[in-house]
Structures are given as structure tokens and as C-alpha cells.
């Protein structure tokens, strides 16, 4: 009937709301650019907040599927929400496209024909930094992460690539405010590098306190700790910190440049990878509907079209692996202060080229 | 017959303040023993120790020849050692009837009964009504305890103690707060009760004490300074000086 319905489920309450906001905004920007249409069909977007509570997310998703009859569910931000909603969505007639969370289980044995990820497999970003530390020849590294599944996965991902000595491996309680104990340990250990995964406010605190403690002489490698969602708060304390990503706002291609400019104009903030991935997700859907000839009812055609990933990604090259996770380049990034006073991450070097994840071999999909 | 309650060298201090100093006392069954003494002498503290609300620092307590020193408040209550409180201590949200019925329930054995409606237990309610009638609160059965006047609460306190069917009843100032009329009625009630149950009475109303008591003990500064027949106590100069004053003794 000339209309495509998108249900977006992201976290919009509590401290992580900023991430959900970026995804919502990035997606909306793409749709706006496409003239309010996706694949030539009028796009109708329903955004719901999962409140970071898995059981609530399930109810919300059922609402999207049954009340709003959406064709695509886009979301979520967090892995534990993904675990809860993957089954209800993929069992329905809608496709689930994750613009951020990409857990290993759905990349391997439990991969699903109706589930796509436009970001990365979670481990990859950590591997980037592990590889970098390895290549750089660091002898020892100090690892720090919050004590939950994603934190443990992060350190495992790093260690997959880094073969040097692990000076210490410290897990902190989720939501910890003060890192002086860990920082004192780092000062005492004097490692060649620190690797950490400290998303959100924890990362803001850590980065500021790291700088205040005078530790900036030790290279600070991190994932999801210093990005455009936290930089406005970290500011100078983060400048020079290294991260890993599949994209950065200074990515040198026209579509990305246009995107960053448009995003900043519309929302007054520098976009992070979340926004970029959401934008790409919209573009992916757009391309798929177009390729499938605008027929939303033909699921097989739509699936095949999605799988082709035939759109111009902000990251340049983009294609799906057999498990519907992307194969893409990964970069080492560095925090910098721009001429206009804003902060962003910038690409330093490419660490992986056309990098697919290692779980795809377990995925029965062809 | 041996004593129903025997205290051996009971001592208790609150910091520097000695509220019980080596107290030895025997209560004979079937008698009403009055305990008098100035404010802060340690009467209530003694009742607390006998009933198990307060642990003595030293000394032993025998109830019906059993050493109950180590037993808790509830265990002693189940053995029939029941007390009333100086400040009415009730279940303000319950009706007067339920307050007393709960006491009867405590007497009736296990309360780990989960299904039968307690409010419909005819036996408990009947017992409760009897107790309420005895203290003259028959008209107030349905009133919530929190809505009773001060004096009515004191009467209810006595009714609750009665419904526990004590073997030894420790009464802490039962007459306090009662009006002139009610005091007279309560006096009559205790007169008849005397024949049923042994009592230890703490009271500042000397009229009541001398009308009721078979024996009187005087506690001053945590020490028993005198014990004996009411008349002898009334005449004792030491007691007059420490407690009674001239007017009351006269």
C-alpha cells in the first residue's frame, strides 16, 4: 500500500539514553535525506524505549509487531536486550536489524536468516586494539573492564590478538564512580599500555580521573570509552586516547562528510558510530526495498536484497558475511580537538581490512 | 507449699545506675504481694527481669521451681508468667475484642494455623468478651484500641493480661490513669481475682495497696529495704521517710 513501517527499539532512559538518541537521530537523518521515504515507500517510524529492561523490551517488541505491524525492527543498543528480543522478532514476519549490539551467539550457531547486524561483531573492536598493541610491540598491558558479560568479552577479544604479558586484569563493579584504586594499581604496575572497555558515564569518570592522576604518559587504549557520545564530557582529558572503530567522523569519503555535516547541523553534536550505523541501517533498508521492487510481502526477495547490502555505506565498503554480520575495515582512532573547539575521534591507521568475524564458520546459513 | 516465684540475688545495672541490687524475694502461691517504692527505684525493671524482657546481670529466677533465668519473654509467658505494662501496650489497629482474643489465642496453643478465619473463632471471642466484661469495657468491644481514652486503654491492658490465664500475674501500676470510679471498680475486680491467681502488684495508689496486699515489699534505690505485713510496712519509719511521707502513712 506504498508504506513501510519501521519499529525502532532503543534505550532512551537512564544514562545510556544518549546512545539510543544517536541511533534514533542517525536513522531519522537518513530517512529525511531520502525524502521521508525508504525504498520509495513512505516511511512510518515508531520509536520505543526498552528502558534497558529485557522483559519490558519483549512486551514493547510485541507491541511493534502486532499493534503497529512493522516490517522491520531496528534495535537494540545493548546485548542483553538483543538476547531477549531476537526470538520474538525473527519468529514473526518482520526482519530484525541491529544497528549496534552484535553478540557472538547470533553470529555463530544461533545465526538467523531474519536477523542482520549493521555494526560489527562485538569482539572485533576489542581485537583491533589487541592487534594494535601486539603490532606496536607492547610488552605488557593492564586490562580494565566492568564486571559483566560485555566486559568479560571485551578483555577476551583483546587477548585474542595481544600475546604480551597481562600486567593485571581488573574487573570493576558496574556503575563504579571512582577509579582511584585501579589508577593507583596502574601507576604501580607501570604497564606499556592500558586497555579498557568502560562505556558511558563510567568511561567519562575513568578518562577524567586517568588524566587527573597524571597517567597520560601510559598509552590509553579503549573501546566504547571515548567516542562522540562521551567526548563532550571528557574534553581535553581524552585528547590523544586511542580507540578502535569501523568509522570515525573524519572518514574521507563524500557521503560521510555530508552525513557528519548534516548531523551536526541538525542535532548540534558530532555523530558517533552509533549514529553512523543507524544511518547505514536506513540506507540498507532503503536499498533492500528498492531491490525487491517495493514488495514488502515477498520476504524471500527482501531477505536476499538485504543480504546483498547494496547501498553506499558511510564507511565505504560494506558487505555481509554468511551470518549476516558485516565484513568491513577497522581502524585505530585517536581523540582530537577540532578547530571549532569540538572533540571527535580521528582515524590513525587501518588495522584490519575486510575483516569478518570468526564465528561465521559455525553459522549454518549459506 | 513452695514459692511460685523465687528470686535469688538478682542484680542489674544500667551503666553507673544500679536498678536491682542483690534482690532475693519469694512469692507464696495464692497471695497478693505488693511492691512499692519511690519513682525510679527499679520496680518496673524488676518486673522486666522477672518477665524476661530484661536480662539480669547476675542472679537467678525460679518460676514454679524451674530456673527460667535464661528463658525469653515469650517462653515465660507460655509457662503462665504474665505481665501488664505500666504504659498500656496494645495493638492500636485491632479492636478491643481482637486485642483480648489474641491473648486468648496465645493461651490456646499453636498459632501456626493458616486457613481458619481467626475472627470467627467463637471460643476465643467468647473468652475475650468475658475478660472485657470483667474490666467494664463490655461496651467498647468493637472500638479500635488506638481510639480508646487513656483510662480505657489501661482497663484493656488488664483485660489482656486476664485473658492470658496467668499462673502468676505481674501488674505494673494497674490503677494509674483510672478515674475515681474506675479505681474502685478495679479494686473490686482484683479482690475477686486474688482468689484465682497469684499476683505481684506494683502500685503507687496506697489505698489500693493496703486494701489488697497480703504482703508488701519496699524497693528503694534497687534494694529491698523492707518486706512484711502491710501494717508493719505502713508503720516502718524507714518506709515513711523514703516513700510514703507523713500524710499517706497516717
Amino acid at each position, binding site marked *: 500500500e506504498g508504506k513501510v513501517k519501521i519499529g525502532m527499539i532503543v534505550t532512551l532512559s537512564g544514562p545510556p539514553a544518549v546512545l539510543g538518541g544517536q541511533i534514533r537521530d542517525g536513522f531519522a537523518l537518513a530517512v529525511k535525506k531520502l525524502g521521508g521515504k525508504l525504498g520509495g515507500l513512505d516511511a512510518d517510524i515508531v520509536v520505543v524505549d526498552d528502558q534497558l529492561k529485557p522483559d519490558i523490551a519483549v512486551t514493547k517488541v510485541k507491541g511493534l509487531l502486532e499493534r503497529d505491524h512493522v516490517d522491520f525492527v531496528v534495535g537494540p543498543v545493548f546485548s542483553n536486550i538483543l538476547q531477549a528480543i531476537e526470538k520474538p522478532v525473527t519468529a514473526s514476519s518482520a526482519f530484525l536489524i541491529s544497528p549496534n549490539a552484535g553478540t557472538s551467539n547470533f553470529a555463530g550457531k544461533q545465526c538467523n536468516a531474519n536477523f542482520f547486524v549493521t555494526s560489527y561483531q562485538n569482539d572485533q573492536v576489542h581485537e583491533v586494539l589487541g592487534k594494535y598493541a601486539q603490532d606496536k610491540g607492547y610488552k605488557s598491558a593492564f586490562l580494565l573492564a566492568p564486571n559483566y558479560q560485555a566486559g568479560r568479552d571485551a578483555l577476551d577479544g583483546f587477548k585474542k590478538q595481544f600475546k604480551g604479558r597481562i600486567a593485571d586484569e581488573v574487573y570493576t563493579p558496574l556503575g563504579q564512580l571512582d577509579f582511584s584504586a585501579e589508577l593507583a594499581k596502574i601507576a604501580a604496575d607501570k604497564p606499556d599500555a592500558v586497555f579498557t572497555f568502560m562505556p558511558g558515564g563510567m568511561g567519562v569518570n575513568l578518562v577524567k580521573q586517568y588524566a587527573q592522576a597524571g597517567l597520560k604518559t601510559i598509552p590509553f587504549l579503549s573501546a566504547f570509552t571515548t567516542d562522540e557520545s562521551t567526548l563532550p*564530557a571528557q574534553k581535553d582529558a581524552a585528547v590523544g586516547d586511542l580507540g578502535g572503530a569501523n568509522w570515525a567522523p573524519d572518514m574521507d569519503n563524500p557521503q560521510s562528510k555530508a552525513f557528519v555535516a548534516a548531523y551536526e547541523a541538525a542535532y548540534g553534536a558530532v555523530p558517533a558510530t552509533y549514529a553512523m550505523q543507524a544511518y547505514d541501517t536506513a540506507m540498507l533498508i532503503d536499498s533492500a526495498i528498492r531491490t525487491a521492487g517495493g514488495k514488502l510481502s515477498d520476504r524471500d526477495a527482501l531477505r536476499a536484497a538485504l543480504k546483498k547490502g547494496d547501498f553506499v555505506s558511510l564507511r565505504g565498503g560494506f558487505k555481509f558475511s554468511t551470518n549476516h554480520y558485516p565484513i568491513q575495515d577497522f581502524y585505530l582512532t585517536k581523540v582530537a580537538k577540532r578547530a571549532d573547539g569540538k572533540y571527535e575521534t580521528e582515524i590513525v591507521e587501518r588495522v584490519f581490512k575486510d575483516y569478518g568475524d570468526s564465528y561465521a564458520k559455525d553459522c549454518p546459513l549459506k | 507449699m513452695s514459692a511460685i516465684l523465687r528470686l535469688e540475688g538478682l542484680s542489674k545495672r544500667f551503666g553507673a545506675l544500679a536498678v536491682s541490687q542483690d534482690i532475693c524475694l519469694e512469692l507464696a502461691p495464692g497471695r497478693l504481694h505488693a511492691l512499692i517504692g519511690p519513682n525510679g527505684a527499679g520496680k518496673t525493671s524488676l518486673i522486666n527481669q522477672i518477665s524476661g524482657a530484661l536480662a539480669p546481670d547476675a542472679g537467678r529466677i525460679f518460676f514454679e521451681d524451674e530456673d527460667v533465668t535464661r528463658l525469653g519473654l515469650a517462653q515465660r509467658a507460655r509457662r503462665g508468667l504474665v505481665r501488664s505494662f505500666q504504659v498500656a501496650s496494645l495493638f492500636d489497629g485491632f479492636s478491643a475484642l481482637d486485642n483480648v482474643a489474641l491473648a486468648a489465642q496465645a493461651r490456646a496453643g499453636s498459632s501456626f494455623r493458616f486457613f481458619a478465619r481467626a475472627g470467627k473463632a467463637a471460643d476465643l471471642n467468647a473468652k475475650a468478651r468475658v475478660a472485657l466484661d470483667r474490666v467494664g469495657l463490655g461496651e467498647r468491644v468493637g472500638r479500635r484500641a488506638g481510639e480508646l481514652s487513656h483510662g480505657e486503654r489501661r482497663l484493656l491492658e488488664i483485660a489482656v493480661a486476664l485473658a492470658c490465664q496467668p499462673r502468676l500475674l505481674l501488674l505494673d501500676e494497674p490503677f494509674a490513669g483510672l478515674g475515681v470510679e474506675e479505681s474502685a471498680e478495679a479494686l473490686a475486680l482484683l479482690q475477686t481475682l486474688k482468689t484465682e491467681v497469684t499476683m505481684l502488684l506494683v502500685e503507687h495508689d496506697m489505698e489500693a495497696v493496703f486494701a489488697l496486699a497480703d504482703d508488701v515489699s519496699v524497693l528503694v534505690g534497687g534494694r529491698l529495704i523492707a518486706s512484711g505485713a502491710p501494717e508493719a510496712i505502713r508503720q516502718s519509719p524507714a518506709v515513711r521517710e523514703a516513700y510514703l511521707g507523713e500524710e499517706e502513712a497516717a
Partner: protein
Amino acid sequence: MALLLVQTLNGLQLGIILFLISAGLTLVFGVMNFVNLAHGAQYMVGAYLAAWLIGLTGNFWLGLALTLPATLAFGLALEALIYRHLYNRDPLDQILATFGLILFIDEGVKTIWGAEPISVDTPAALAGGVALMPGLLYPIYRLALIGAGLAVAALLYLIVNHTRVGMRVRAGASNSAMISALGIDIGRLFLIVFGLGATLAGLAGALVAPILSVEPGMGDSVLILVFVVIVIGGVGSIRGAFLGALLVGLIDTLGRAFGPALLDLAMNPSAASQTGRSLTPMLIYLLMAGVLFVRPSGLFPVKR
């Protein structure tokens, strides 16, 4: 050994931060007997106002000076609109109302200032560190925080224990009808004390802003910690809150720093790191359960 010293210092200063946040709540909760779950939210508002005002004026001290009256005004508005009607009520009603307030304030803050964390720079005068020992650089700002914490502790101790205001509020919390019948306008007194509590919450938010990120919901996670502190110390005891905060800070910091190493000695390393991981976040709760097991009314029980 030097590490132990540093970690002890770290523990103490985490304790001071916790105390700063707890101080206002002990006052309102412990002295006025009012369960104010929204204290955390008021602390957050303090942090936001500080971030905003410091940004606006470009001067930390000026911003701080403006934050205090602003949080006071905010607290007084809450008092007049809501809290005043709840003083003599079931604590559960207070819980419900203040929970509702948290929802509202969290959302409101996000609507006004956005969801991104914001931060406040350390004032230039207090930036940098001092060398306490060779090789041990300690941030000056944190030393200043410790000073502020001590000052607040002393102030509160005086107010609660050595002024008639403190007595009257405690009396009013236990029997407000009686204190009125003695000629004391308990409503006004509560207003004053509540205002003080609100200001302290705001002060804590403002002082902590240069160290911690200012973000929506920052008060909620801290709230539980603060309750732990207060309960360990004994509700209503300033001394207790102070020592409770230090204890929590120390145990948490030292446990995180040395716990795993100690476990390593006791069992094989992989089992130890597994246990260590699950044990460290539990530490303060274990501490609280332990304290309450031995002293069911906290370390410094207070008459309430």
C-alpha cells in the same frame, strides 16, 4: 607498602565523597525521619545546576556560589509543594511520593540538558597535584574535597547535637503534636532543616561534578550507596554516617585493590579470579550485612 598507603588514601577520599552526598540525607532521614528517596535526584540537580552555572559564568567559584541558592530554592519548592504534606505520614507514602519525584526529575533534567554526560573542569586554582611522597602525586582538588567533607561533618555535628534547632527537630520528628503544644513552629523548623538538606545535596553535586560525570540518573545509583553508608553508621548519626562512609570507601577500595591478590594466595589463580570477580561488587553489601548482623542498628545507634 607505598601502594597500600595510596590505596588507603584513595579509600578515605572515596569515603569523603560518599559522606558529602550522605550528609544531607542523614539530616533529613535521620533527624526529621523523612524517607527522601529524591535526595539523589536533588544531588543530581545540584550537579547539573553547577555545570550549567559554571559554564554560564565561566568561573567555578561564582558558579558554585550561585548553585547553592539555586538548589536551596529548588528544595524549598519541593518542600512547600509536596514534602510538607507527608511529614507525619506512613514512610511508605513518602517512598511513593519521592519515587515519583525521581521519575519526574530524571526525565526533566534530560529534557532540559539532554542525555549526554556533561563535565565540569577542575577550577584552575585547584588543578594539578601535590607530591605527598616521592612518586606519589595526589590531585589537589581531591584534597580540597576532603577538607569540604570535614567541614560539612563538623557543621552538621554541631547543628544536630549542640543547638536547640537540632533538639527541636528531633523532638518534632518523634512527636510533632507535642512539640507544637510547647510553642514551637515545627513546620518552619522542618522547612529550614529541609532547606539545609537540599543545599547540602546540591553542594555535594556541585563539588563532585569536576570528578564524576554529570549525567541523567546519576543520583539513583548513588542513592543506594548512600543508604548503605547511612545504615552502616546508624541512621541519624552524623558521626555514624561519617565513619560509615569512610568504612565503605576503604573496604571497597582496598577490597578492589588487594582482594584478588589475597584470594590468589588462598586458592588456585583461576578459581580465585572467578571468585574475586563475583565477590568485589558484593563487598559493600557483605560489609553491610555483616555490620547489621553484629549491630542490628548500625555502628552508632541513635535514639529515634
